[in-house]
């Protein structure tokens, strides 16, 4: 018997498609962000507020994923930006192939930002690169402060944590500082923005973060590699 060394990543097919997508997004200068969270943390509502606040001339598109229904896309389409629903059928996460298929008839040169709303799931999306520039994780104040410790992989991979539903803080025993401390245990450089979509708090911080992230993305495109 012979042992031969093998190299390379498992999840090869998704990683390959994701790498191709990433190259295309970089070539077309499109900032792509991947929003992840538990079901019900407020991803779609945050996106409604985001699209509602953007100037109509903004070159932004949205892909939103769910197992069933087009409900989220229908909510988001009201703001006048290109929005498509990805119905996975049963798959608990979006994968690169789904993104590739759904952007096929979009001209990426016409976009500055693509927001992908993943299926509500803190587990599986962590394993599936979509070619995005950044993952953003939402955590609502009705969840536990130890969520980052329970789901370290997704918190490790996310650049920003958006703490949602902060208007409920007076009514729930949630300790926001503890949640942030836990997130930083798993990912020391994690940034945070606190929002309440209902009350309108923190939305300016969120929009500013997106703006700065896009500037950082564009700056990285002009830097020589290596």
């Amino acid at each position, binding site marked *: *018997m*012979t*042992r*031969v*060394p*093998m*190299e*390379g*990543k*498992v*999840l*090869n*097919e*998704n990683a390959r498609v994701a790498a191709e997508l990433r190259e295309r997004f970089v070539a077309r200068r499109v900032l792509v962000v991947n929003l992840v969270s538990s079901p019900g943390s407020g991803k779609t509502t945050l996106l409604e507020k985001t699209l509602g606040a953007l100037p109509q001339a903004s070159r932004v598109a949205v892909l939103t994923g769910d197992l069933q229904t087009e409900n989220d896309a229908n909510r988001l389409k009201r703001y006048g930006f290109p929005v498509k629903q990805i119905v996975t059928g049963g798959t*608990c*996460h979006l994968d690169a192939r789904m993104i590739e298929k759904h952007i096929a008839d979009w001209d990426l040169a016409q976009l500055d930002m693509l927001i992908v709303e993943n299926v509500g799931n803190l*587990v*599986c999306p*962590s*394993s*599936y690169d979509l070619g995005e520039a950044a993952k953003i994780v939402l955590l609502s104040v009705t969840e536990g402060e130890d969520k980052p*410790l329970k*789901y*370290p*992989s*997704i918190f*490790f*991979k996310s650049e920003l944590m958006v703490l949602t539903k902060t208007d409920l803080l007076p009514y729930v025993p949630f300790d926001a500082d503890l949640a942030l401390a836990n997130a*930083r*245990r*798993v*990912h*020391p*450089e994690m940034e945070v923005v606190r929002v309440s979509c209902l009350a309108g708090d923190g939305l300016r911080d969120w929009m500013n973060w997106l703006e700065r992230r896009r500037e950082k993305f564009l700056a990285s495109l002009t830097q020589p590699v290596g």
Partner: protein
Amino acid sequence: MHEMGIANSILEGVAQELKRRPGSRAVSVGVRIGELAGVDPDALSFAFEALTLDTDFAGLAIDVEYVVPRSRCTECRHEFDVRNFELLCPNCGSLSTKRLSGDELEFKYLEIEEDVPQAK
């Protein structure tokens, strides 16, 4: 469950490697999985068995090395294994650390038997 997809990708990788070695049979495949990859060992074993049963890969063993995340201190540059989400650098005690790895999903090796008679 995404362990099915991962098991499938492992088998595809094995099949690719075997194409380069005609007449060989795979006995076991070694993979490295980081603790932060979110892969459940039992679910992966189960998926692997389910996918190899009654195929040419029946009996193929999978050997998983689970690795602990590693971090580097941004102050003293010391690299260390991270257990239980320890924040402090064990060398200088700094809180300023950067996670280097922990979510790997990689191939390590393939154990093969060569010169296997081809079934007709």
